[in-house]
């Protein structure tokens, strides 16, 4: 047939049909938006509509396949940066607390490696699997796992419905991307020149946030995106890029950055050039807040908390215990602006730490991310 | 049958700096062996490369089977049955003997190699060069140099050829291998193939050649039936003057023993230990067939190869078994292979000369160009090097002058022991006699000299006494006297009574 396969189902509408719509779920979802809205003091900031459903818990209810404790496979990002480290370790730590075994595999940030990881983990026949997706490229393999009756929980990331993942625990890229954009738009009164500093070209986390931002800015005809650059989430690269921006766009009104590392480089560049730092966004890494302490830099920060991985584990276990679980769990996490930013700085902690961190204190100490107080 | 199987008409070829060939006309008839003679740099190999389409002439044309022809690549020449064996070895050491013999002429059925046919073909070809008992699967790199050369010749023979060109095939052959070569050449000529044969060993000419052509400085100076030529005449034509190849007796060595080699065994040699004593001012020759172990012996003395046993003393002091150790002790080796081991061709003449002892021409690690040039001029004086100046890339020098540089660089360190391996290989007769002069002078100046050479006349003529090698072992010592030549050959061949 010349038909496109599954073109109907991919719209997700089929999911909606058998959706046991859970109101408190919907509420929780909107909450994650409103909290940001308040934090950033945004006037109009409506959640992109999204139907959250409840998964039939009974379907996945199961006894431990081996021994008397569950074995949870964890296809992790790997310790490629402090986010990855905390994401990995938070889950392992929580697993120890709950006394479940973890089968760990690190993708080191590479989707292709993760495909292999997932297949290998699947072959070890775990009770459930938590996956921190490195890119849509893995959805095929995720599907394979689900087809073998292994409930898969996606963690801090999205995959297309075709992946068949049972539940997704994450914070929304759209949320962050557009929230930052809205904040800038309101700062500029819907008028001005903006530069977009995205992370890594071709990497979903970066590209989706960027897309959301562009969509938002599009609503404001008088806001001009003068240039889009990539920082590779490296302050060094970001600083060089920013120096170029200063030279070519001296009259830049604001900078949309998806990362604190990027923002850090930008701030340095402007300070060195002796120019006022334009309003800037990013995720709230300790380093950035410390660097801007006592300056009049205007910023809006939020986080994509790595420690949400522990929630992912809980969700997986709930599935196995047959308890009600939502197909999309949207994690909320603190967002703030320069107004109250200073209070979050933690001098006893590593610069790369995303603050405020809800990760257990002793874990942070174990990981030498914070000094024991 | 054509009159001229292969020929050249007014072929001229220049390289930046040199006119390698100048209006060369030549005709090789089918069924005859045509010797192409000339000093180094006379243009023989260049002519060969043009006749085989490896290089195209600036002017003039190549004649194939009486027809003027342009050749774009060796492949085209091969297609016309013109089969060369270049001066330089072109077998591939990593490939099997079989694959080397059939390279470029594989037999295949339906795109796949026809292994049966391949083996037959290779066997036949190898048999003709007396290598019938060589396993076809052997890695060619494992063969002795002589055998590699024969494999290369077998490759040429395996092709149906109307013309066979051999550029100095005998340079690395001797004894029965050389004999085998001569036999196959005659046989092929008898089959009606025209053979172009290039050699520096003039005694081969009467044995093989029907016609001969002498090149000098890229010009044909003489050509005709071989019977019209005596060796003396050939030499005269080649150099344009009469050279006396007679060696005056060397002054008897007066000095005390400088080099003492006691039961030395090179790494990888299964031969019995070798002993040797050389006095100051003495010249000791090393004779033997190719692969007999002379080079290996010299390389070991110079610390370039390990010793598995034994020791070397210079002036009564033990020499460390390393290159630098040997050099420090005053042992210098002018290696067999000038272009690969003797010189850094991309450096200038002066830079090569000073490479052995940079301290001389430098202060505080800085090279003083003035001193470097001075060093060059000094050696140019001493050895009569012909070069445009200290800054000339060594690559551009003629073989003889390159060899002089390779010697000069060692004179800089004023060694007590000088080891010369094939010092006149690929060097023209003019330069040869100069090198002989130099060697004698150095000896007279009190140096202990060991010289390995495949040219019997040379070793006997230069040396006070000659050590003969066979299969890596010293099998005898021969002193200067009228019939030493025969005795040496017998020892080398193992036919001594």
């Amino acid at each position, binding site marked *: 047939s010349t*038909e496109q*396969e*599954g073109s109907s189902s991919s719209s997700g509408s089929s999911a909606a049909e058998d959706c046991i719509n859970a109101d408190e779920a919907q509420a929780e979802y909107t909450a994650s938006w409103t909290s940001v809205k308040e934090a950033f003091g945004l006037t109009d900031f409506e959640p992109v509509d999204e139907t959250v459903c409840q998964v039939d818990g009974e379907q996945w209810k199961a006894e431990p396949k081996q021994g008397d404790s569950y074995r949870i496979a964890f296809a992790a990002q790997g310790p490629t940066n402090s986010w990855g480290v905390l994401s990995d370790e938070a889950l392992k730590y929580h697993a120890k607390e709950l006394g479940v075994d973890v089968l760990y595999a690190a993708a080191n940030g590479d989707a*292709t490696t993760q495909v292999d990881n997932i297949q*290998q983990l699947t072959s070890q026949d775990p009770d459930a699997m938590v996956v921190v997706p490195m890119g849509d490229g893995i959805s095929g*393999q995720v599907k394979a796992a689900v087809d073998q009756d292994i409930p898969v929980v996606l963690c801090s990331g999205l995959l297309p419905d075709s992946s068949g993942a049972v539940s997704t625990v994450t914070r929304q890229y759209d949320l962050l991307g557009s929230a930052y954009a809205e904040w800038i738009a309101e700062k500029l009164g819907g008028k001005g020149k903006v530069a977009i500093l995205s992370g890594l070209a*071709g990497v979903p986390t970066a590209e989706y946030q960027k897309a959301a931002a562009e969509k938002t800015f599009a609503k404001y005809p008088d806001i001009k995106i003068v240039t889009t650059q990539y920082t590779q989430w490296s302050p060094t690269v970001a600083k060089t890029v920013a120096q170029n921006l200063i030279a070519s766009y001296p009259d830049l009104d604001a900078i949309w950055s998806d990362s604190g590392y990027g923002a850090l480089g930008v701030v340095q560049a402007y300070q060195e050039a002796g120019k006022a730092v334009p309003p800037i966004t990013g995720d709230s890494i300790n380093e950035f807040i410390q660097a801007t302490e006592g300056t009049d830099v205007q910023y809006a920060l939020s986080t994509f908390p790595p420690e949400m991985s522990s929630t992912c584990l809980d969700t997986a276990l709930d599935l196995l215990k047959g308890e009600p679980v939502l197909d999309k769990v949207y994690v909320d996490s603190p967002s703030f602006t320069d107004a109250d930013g200073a209070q979050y700085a933690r001098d006893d902690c590593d610069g790369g730490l995303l603050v405020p961190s809800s990760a257990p204190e002793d874990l942070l100490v174990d990981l030498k991310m914070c000094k024991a107080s | 049958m054509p009159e001229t199987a292969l020929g050249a008409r007014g072929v001229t070829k220049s390289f930046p700096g040199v006119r390698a060939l100048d209006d060369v006309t030549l005709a090789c008839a089918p069924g005859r062996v045509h010797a192409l003679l000339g000093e180094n740099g006379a243009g023989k190999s260049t002519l060969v490369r043009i006749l085989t389409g490896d290089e195209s002439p600036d002017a003039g044309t190549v004649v194939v089977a009486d027809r003027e022809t342009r050749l774009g690549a060796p492949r085209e020449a091969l297609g016309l049955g013109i089969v060369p064996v270049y001066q330089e070895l072109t077998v591939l050491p*990593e490939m099997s003997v079989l694959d080397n013999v059939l390279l470029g002429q*594989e037999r295949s059925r339906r795109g*796949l190699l026809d292994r049966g046919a391949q083996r037959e073909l290779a066997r036949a070809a190898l048999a003709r060069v007396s290598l019938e008992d060589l396993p076809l699967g052997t890695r060619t790199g494992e063969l002795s140099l002589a055998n590699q050369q024969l494999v290369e010749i077998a490759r040429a023979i395996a092709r149906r050829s109307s013309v066979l060109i051999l550029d100095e095939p005998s340079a690395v052959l001797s004894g029965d291998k050389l004999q085998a070569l001569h036999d196959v050449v005659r046989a092929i000529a008898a089959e009606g193939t025209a053979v172009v044969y290039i050699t520096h060993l003039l005694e081969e000419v009467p044995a093989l050649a029907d016609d001969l052509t002498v090149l000098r400085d890229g010009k044909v100076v003489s050509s005709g039936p071989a019977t019209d030529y005596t060796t003396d005449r050939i030499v005269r034509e080649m150099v344009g003057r009469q050279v006396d190849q007679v060696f005056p007796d060397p002054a008897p060595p007066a000095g005390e023993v400088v080099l003492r080699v006691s039961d030395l065994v090179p790494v990888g040699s299964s031969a019995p230990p070798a002993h040797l004593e050389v006095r100051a001012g003495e010249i000791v020759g090393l004779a033997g067939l190719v692969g007999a172990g002379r080079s290996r012996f010299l390389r070991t003395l110079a610390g370039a190869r390990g010793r598995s046993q034994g020791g070397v003393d210079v002036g009564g002091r033990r020499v460390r078994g390393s290159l630098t150790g040997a050099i420090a002790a005053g042992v210098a080796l002018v290696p067999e292979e000038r272009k690969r081991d003797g010189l850094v061709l991309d450096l200038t003449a002066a830079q090569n000369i000073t490479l052995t002892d940079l301290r001389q021409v430098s202060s505080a690690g800085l090279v003083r160009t003035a001193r470097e040039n001075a060093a060059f001029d000094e050696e140019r004086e001493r050895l009569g090097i012909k070069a445009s100046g200290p800054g000339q890339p060594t690559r551009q020098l003629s073989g003889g002058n390159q060899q002089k540089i390779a010697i000069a660089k060692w004179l800089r360190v004023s060694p007590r022991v000088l080891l010369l391996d094939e010092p006149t290989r690929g060097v023209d007769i003019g330069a040869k006699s100069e090198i002989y002069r130099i060697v004698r002078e150095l000896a007279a100046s009190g140096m202990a000299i060991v010289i390995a050479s495949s040219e019997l006349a040379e070793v006997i003529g230069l040396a006070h006494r000659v050590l003969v090698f066979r299969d890596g072992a010293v099998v005898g010592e021969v002193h200067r006297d009228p019939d030493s030549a025969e005795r040496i050959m017998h020892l080398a061949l193992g036919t001594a009574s």
Partner: protein
Amino acid sequence: MTSVAAPRGSRAPRLAAFSGLVRRGGAVWVIVLALVLALTFARGTGFWNSGNIAAVLAGAAVLGLVALGQHVVVLGGGIDLSVGSMVTLTSLLTAVLVDGYPIRTVPVIVAMVVLGAAMGLLNGSLVSVARLPPFIVTLGMLYLVSGVALTVSATPAGRVTAALTDFSRATLGPVPAPFLVLVAAVAAVWLLLARTPWGRHLYAVGGDQHAARAAGVRVRPVLLGAYVTSGVLAGLAGVLLAARSAIGSPTAGSGLELSAITAVVIGGTSLLGGRGSLLGTVGGVALLALITNAITLLQLPSTWTDLVRGLIIIAAVAVFVVRRPR
């Protein structure tokens, strides 16, 4: 004197035997075997269960195809740094062009193989006709092609058909279908190298271009053939990768070239060209695939991964290099 003389630099026989083993590509299998034994002891059931074996084999398929192409190019005395990017582009395009339309599947697969061949042809011509150093040509192509991929789509895009995904997961016993593709490819390449004139010529050209030319070998077509082979195999690998991921990504193949070269070298093939054994390269692939598998299987601390990988690679290359004879 007619007999065969002692081997060059005639080393101690034991060493010689070893270097012979390396030459024939057997050496790396020693490590592979050791690793397999170690894993069997440590995680017998876990390692040998058909699923895990399938995982190892499937993981090896893509790298294997690319390494195979690399092997051919390296034999010819070249190097192909652009394979990774070629895989990226072809896999991305497979997904984007198929985009879930079953009828497109076959044409697109063909197209990708052709595209691979075309890119190989470009590499090959720059190397053999324009006579530029392979390293630089393919380095340039690496940038160029990955650039093109990013312009095709900066985000994961497209979707392959069920047919493809099913194929990527189909198994014959414990053997996954993609691995069978690799096996077929190995067989084909072996035939090309060992049983055709082209194969002989490739060794010759890699070993010594002007000697080959002197023997009447057409150097250009031989080299072109090598790079085209590499391109075609990269194209195939791209399709397999797409089938496996179901979706195209603009970074899918990044880094593959380095793994491929590593596999070839620890397989005992000389980067100088003219010498190498397919067996060795396959062993190299097996080793790399096993390392990845072992690290997860043994649940090593993730922060050690690169350390372990680095150590094993260094150990392997340090031991399994045949030094060029003096």
